Every structure is written in C-alpha cells, then in structure tokens.
C-alpha cells in the first residue's frame, strides 16, 4: 500500500489550490480519504481521539442494510418466477434476476446523489460528506422494483438539493433524504408508484392465470367487501411466516422483517441506532394496531390485521429501524427519542388504517415526525431550562 500511497501523494499537488485539477479537489480528497485515513493530527483541545468517524458510522449502517438488500434481490426474482410461472426456483437464478432488475436503480441513485454531493462540496470547499452512502442504498430499497431510472434520478436530485444541500449538507437537514425522495416519487408520479402492477417485475413475460401483483396492504386498502385475507401473487393466501420473512411483493428492500431484525441487531450492537427510538416505535405501532384491531370495521379493512401482522407487513419495520433512527432528523434528547419513536409508530398505523388513500403510512409518519422532532426537543430542553431557573430562584 505504501507504493500506492506514494503514487497518489505524487499527484496530490495537482489537485490542491493552484494545481491543474484544483476544480476536482473535493472529489480527489473524497477518494483519498476513502483509501487512506487522514493523517491530520489534533490542533486544539484533546490530543487523542476515538477511532470512530463519520465514514465508519455510515459503513456500519450500509452493512446493516446488506441482509435486507440481498434478500430483496432474491425476493424480486421469486415474485417474478411466481408471477410468470417460471419453474426454475434455484437460489442463484432468482437472486441474479433480482440483482439485474434493481442494479440500475442503485447505480442511478448513487451516481445522481453523489454527483450532486461532489459538486456542492467543491463549490463550498468542503470535504465530501458520507451521508449519501446510506441514502443512496436506502432510496432504491424503498421504491417499487419497476420505478423507471429517470424518475428516480429526478427524485434523488430534488431530495438531495432541496432537503439537504440547501440546509447545509449532512447534519443540517431536518427531513430524511431517502424519504423525501420516496415522497417526491409518490406524489409526483402516483400512477407509477402504487397500484397492482409496479411491485412485481415481470420482465416482459406474461403473467400466469390468477396473478395479482398487489401488495398485501394494497389489497386491503382496495378491498370493498370486507375481505381481510391477504394473498400472494398467485392467489394463495399468505401465512404469517410469509409475512415475517417477506415472501410477498412490495418495495423490494423492506418486505422481510426477519432481515430487518438482523440489521437492527447490527445497529443496536454497534450503538449507532438509538434503541429508545426503536423500542418506543415498536410499542407505539403495537399499541395503535391493538387499538385498531379491537375496533375493526369493514369500512377500514386494514384494521382487521393483528398487531403482529401490522408490524411485519409493508414498510413499518424498515421505517422504524432505518428511517426513524437517522440521528440527524430524529430527536436528539433521550426523552424526546421516546416520544418521537412512539408517535412514528402510532401515526404510521393510523395513516395505514384510516386513510385508505395511502396503503402505507410509515413514510409519511416519519416525515411528519421529522418536522416535529425539533419541537419535541424544544419542549424537553425547556424543562431543563426551567429546572435551572427554578434552582436559581430557590437558592437566591
């Protein structure tokens, strides 16, 4: 590695101020610090630092997403095979079908998002921030598999510029960038983002008889007969195990609660995600679904789902584990985190159950609570301020 470093160091001056490629300084610096840990030593304050940095943190999140990502690819293949009657259910066949189906989306998200990051970093003279490493993989995972790349590109550009860069970049945004992308797609291109034909990749083949590509929550939201049994793509009823392990159509990265739990273990073990948010989010979701289930009505068929089914279906678990725990857009106080998580869980189920226009409420719940996070913190911090004021008054 010494040789490689020497070589890179020798071209470094060309990227510094006044060099031939000084306009690419941020990009060069981004790659350089990716390859070699910066040797900057402390100039003020403490002389030693913890090894954990922003890169490591983001990489751990990406690592936690890998089980969901790999499973999602395989599941895209499985749903395709079921829908088209393809008899070949071998692991690699299914996986690679899904892999090739979603690869363009992943590449699009990264190229557009990181491209904007690079340009903005250069304009501002900043280092490139790693936040989009996570957003870039999250975005395709929460979109339907058939989302056209150009739509994704427009949405990513919108989200990165207007939800993040205008506020100052990673650490200053108040809305989750991945969810803003998803919301943009949902509201700008509703026909391509919902319905029965976007969540299963048919790949040009004809579907088998009895095929329906509707997601479980989509089926319930559209149900007018009070029918509450959810079906797979071939019309067979889904068991709870199917729901838990994620063998049903949906936004491809978020169907498997099992894989999300693996990710959760990684995030909690490394201390990156806040257990307070996850715990209170699950409690909030469970509590609200229990309430809804007890007052189930044919008017709102989703209310017939049991709490466990509610927590396993759709994007709920994914949103709680990977979206609500985004430290930048969540509450920053510990007490605030409990409130924030609980409300996300509860609001997600409320929207899901009682607003038949939106089959899934997790995305909107997180975005809504993103907006309220600062307010919750404000109240929590104010109680600290009042305590301090009171102390001063009592003592004097």
């Amino acid at each position, binding site marked *: *590695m010494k040789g*490689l*470093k020497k070589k890179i160091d020798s071209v470094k001056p060309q990227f510094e101020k006044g060099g031939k490629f000084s306009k690419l300084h941020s990009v060069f610096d981004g790659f350089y*610090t*990716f*390859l*070699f*840990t*910066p*040797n*900057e*030593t*402390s*100039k*003020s*304050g*403490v*002389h*030693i*630092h*913890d*090894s*954990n*940095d*922003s*890169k*490591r*943190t983001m*990489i*751990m999140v990406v690592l936690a997403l890998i089980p969901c990502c790999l499973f999602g690819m395989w599941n895209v293949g499985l749903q395709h095979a079921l829908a088209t009657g393809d008899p070949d259910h071998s692991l690699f066949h299914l996986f690679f079908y899904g892999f090739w189906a979603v690869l363009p989306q992943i590449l699009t998200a990264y190229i557009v998002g990181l491209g904007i990051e690079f340009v903005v970093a250069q304009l501002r003279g900043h*280092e490139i*921030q790693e*936040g989009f490493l996570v957003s870039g993989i999250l975005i395709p995972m929460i979109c339907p598999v058939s989302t056209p790349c150009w739509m994704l590109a427009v949405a990513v550009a919108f989200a990165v510029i207007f939800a993040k860069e205008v506020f*100052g*970049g*990673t*650490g*200053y945004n108040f809305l989750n960038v991945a969810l803003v992308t998803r919301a943009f797609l949902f509201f700008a291109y509703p026909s391509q983002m919902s319905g029965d034909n976007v969540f299963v990749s048919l790949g040009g083949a004809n579907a088998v008889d009895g095929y329906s590509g509707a997601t479980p929550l989509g089926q319930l939201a559209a149900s007018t007969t009070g029918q509450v049994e959810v079906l797979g793509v071939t019309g067979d009823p889904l068991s709870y195990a199917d729901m838990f392990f994620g063998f049903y159509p949906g936004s491809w990265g978020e169907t498997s609660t099992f894989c999300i739990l693996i990710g959760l273990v990684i995030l909690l073990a*490394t*201390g*990156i995600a*806040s257990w307070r948010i996850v715990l209170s989010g699950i409690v909030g979701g469970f509590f609200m679904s229990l309430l809804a289930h007890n007052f189930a009505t044919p008017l709102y068929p989703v209310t017939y789902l049991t709490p466990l089914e509610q927590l396993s279906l759709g994007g709920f678990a994914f949103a709680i584990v990977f979206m609500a725990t985004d*430290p*930048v857009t*969540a*509450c*920053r*106080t*510990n007490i605030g*985190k409990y409130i924030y998580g609980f409300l996300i869980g509860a609001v997600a189920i409320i929207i899901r159950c009682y607003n038949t226009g939106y089959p899934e409420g997790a995305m909107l719940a997180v975005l809504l609570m993103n907006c309220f996070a600062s307010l919750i*913190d404000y109240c929590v*911090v104010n109680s*600290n*301020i009042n*305590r*301090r*004021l009171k*102390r*001063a008054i009592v*003592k004097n």
Partner: protein
Amino acid sequence: MAEKIRIKKGFNIPLAGAPSSIVTDDRLTSVFAISPDDFPGPVWKAVVKTDDKVNAGDPLLIDKASGKICLVSPVSGKVIDVHRGERRHIEYISVAKDSENGAVIISSEDSKNVKDQILRSGLWAMMRQRPFDVVPDPGVAPRDIFVTAFDSAPLAGELLSDDLKKWLEEGLKVLSTLTSGKVYLGIKPDSGITSNVAEVYEFEGPHPAGNVGTQIAAIKPVNKGETVWTIDAASAAKIGKLVKTGEIDLTATVAITGPDVKDPHLVRTLIGASIDSLLKDALVKEEGVRIISGNVLTGIRVQKNGFLHYPYRQITVIDEGEDADEFMGWASVNPGKFSVKRSFPAFLRGFSKPFHFDARIKGGHRAMILSGEYDKVFPFDIYPEFLLKAIMAKDIDKMEKLGIYEVAPEDFALPEFVDTSKIELQKTVREGLDYLRKELS
C-alpha cells in the same frame, strides 16, 4: 463521614504509560518559565526586564487591573527572556537559575492580611472561578469554594504528596475565611483524607469524577449571578503552608507519562521547569513524538525547548502519528484501534489492557451527526449539544439558559474525545466563555 457520590457518566481512557510511584529529584533543570496564557482572565503586565536579577518568589507578572495578583519566579537567577509574540503579547518569561532555592519566605510587609499574602505568593493564580473559568477577581466574594483532592485524568499521578497532605487542613481553614459560604472537598474512595472545616464528599466512578466541575455539578451547581472558586488540593495545601509559615512552596511533582516514555515515574521539580531537561533520556524515541504538558485531554502541546505549563503536574508523550498510512482505516478490524463504540472490535479485547494512541484525529471534520454521544461522558444536568450549538450561534440568552455558567472547557474534553464528527469542543467552549465575559463586562 464523607457523603458518597457515584459518577456514572464518564470513561477512563486506557492509555499506555501510567507512572510508577517512584519519585526522583530533578537536578538538571536550570531554566524555568512562567507563561501568562496559562492564567486566563487578567491582563498580565511584566514587571521584570531581560537580564534583571530576581529572587525565587519575586513577581514576574502582575495583573493590570488590581495590581495585586502576582505570578512569581520559581527560582533565583537572571531573567533571560521576556518572550513576546504577535502584538507584543507576552508568551513567557524565562529565568535561569543561579542558586538552589532555600525556603522562599515573603517579607512580612507584603502579608498584612491573608488575602494579600496569597495574592502576592502567586498561589492566587492557581485558583479558578466559575463562571468563565478564569483566575478569580479578588474583589468578589464567592458563594463557595470547591477543592478537588484527586486527578482522574488519563495517567495522572497522585495529586497530593505526603508532604503536602499535612498542610491541607490548614489550607482549607484559610480558604474558609475567604468565603461566607462553605468549602467543599472532593476526595476519591479510600483516600483517608478528612477535614473538620470543609464538607467532604467522596466521588466514585470514572473520569471526570476528579474534575472539580463534575463535583460542583453533583454537590451544588452554579446559578446565574453566582460565583464559586475552585482549586486543587495541592495548591490549597500550599496556601495553608504559606499562611502558617510564610513560605511559598514552588515545588511541583510531575508525572512523566505516556506510551513513548521509557520508565514512567514522578519527578520532583519546580513550577515552569524546562521540558528538555525533564525528559532527558526519558523517551523511547526522539522523533515523531508529541509532548504534552498536562494530560492528553486538556494538556498543552509543547516543543522540546518549551516549559511545563499550569497545572504543573504531568507530562504526557505520545506518537504524533502524522506519517502513519492507514489503508481504508474505516474498514479496519484491528482490535488495537481504540473506540468506545462497538463499531470497532476493540471492545472484544476489553479496556483493561492499555492502548497506544497517537495524535491523529482519525477522521474528517463533520457537522454534529450522531446524537447522545456527548451525554454519555458528560455528568452534568446540561444538554451539551444544545449548549454547544448556542455557543456556536453566539446566542447569549440561550447559553445562559442552557447552563454555560456551570462549565469550563475541560468538562468537554471527554465529549471531544468520543466525538465522531471531530469538532473542537473545548475550543468552542473557551471562545464562548470569553465572548460572554466580554459582552457582559
């Protein structure tokens, strides 16, 4: 019986190079220096010129405002340099020793009352005042005085030598005459220190349990409009000795510590001793090291030709590390890479075995991203992130409300160490305190 307080939030950094209890005498050092920057608050004025002859205990600098607070010469000899930096700012005044100190007695006319005696002896400047973490204004009466009897910082030596221990009670007595409130003494468990004049609290737990700021927060926090003074027990004992005998104790027991020190131990010398003589033949290597006067969290970086800085009790030597080339460090699974977080495998190895640190910040500067990191090592009823943001925004009202009067930069040392975003927290707090002091004066 001392009341027990358990500090839960904090961390003992497992840095290699803890000192043994062996104490050697420093016979080499011939040049000593006092740096006024170590004593923030007053504007200091030099009262000596280059080539002046001074005796040990003679003032080198006095504060402009009252003319009473002195910083004194540690030795008898000739002033060799009144070193000035930009805009004629005095960086240090160095004195070459020409004879060994006997007992340094200040003349009786200088010590009409106890306060004047302490001011004149240079020991006043060893005290700090909160708010603002500055040398106390002698004209203000403090609510209380807080004394800490131990140093919990990484690799710190014993704060109180046996010799000084016997003067501590005397010192606490003197301090109690300076305040209408109480004198509080913070001790560590099983230290065997007792007092009849001070209220004694026993602090158990990791660093920053020994920081006086932590102790104030646990005993009786500072409110707006209040002033408290803080001092370490060694200086308090020296005050006791001064008032009882008239003798200024200018000695300093310095722990020579760190992974790059061959044989970490204690050295008995005088305040402001030159670094190169203290570290003669003591280092594992001469190049690529960072010498810190103080501990790794709050110390001041010095060069070999520099001097020991306030609080004159520790030198830490670590690798600078700027020539390290670590390939894809963010992907490292090296168990020797220290992190309090479990995203590195260091935790598997346990933190009881010491780690080798270097001075790299090990990452890029970012905005505050992760939340709750600071709170885990910050034992105050304060929201550190919000206070820091108020300081960065220069919002005086918010700073006051969020508790800036209770803190000193050193309280933010551990948060700065664990910070994923590598923000210079202590510098931020110092700037905030200075800004506030300027605006409110």
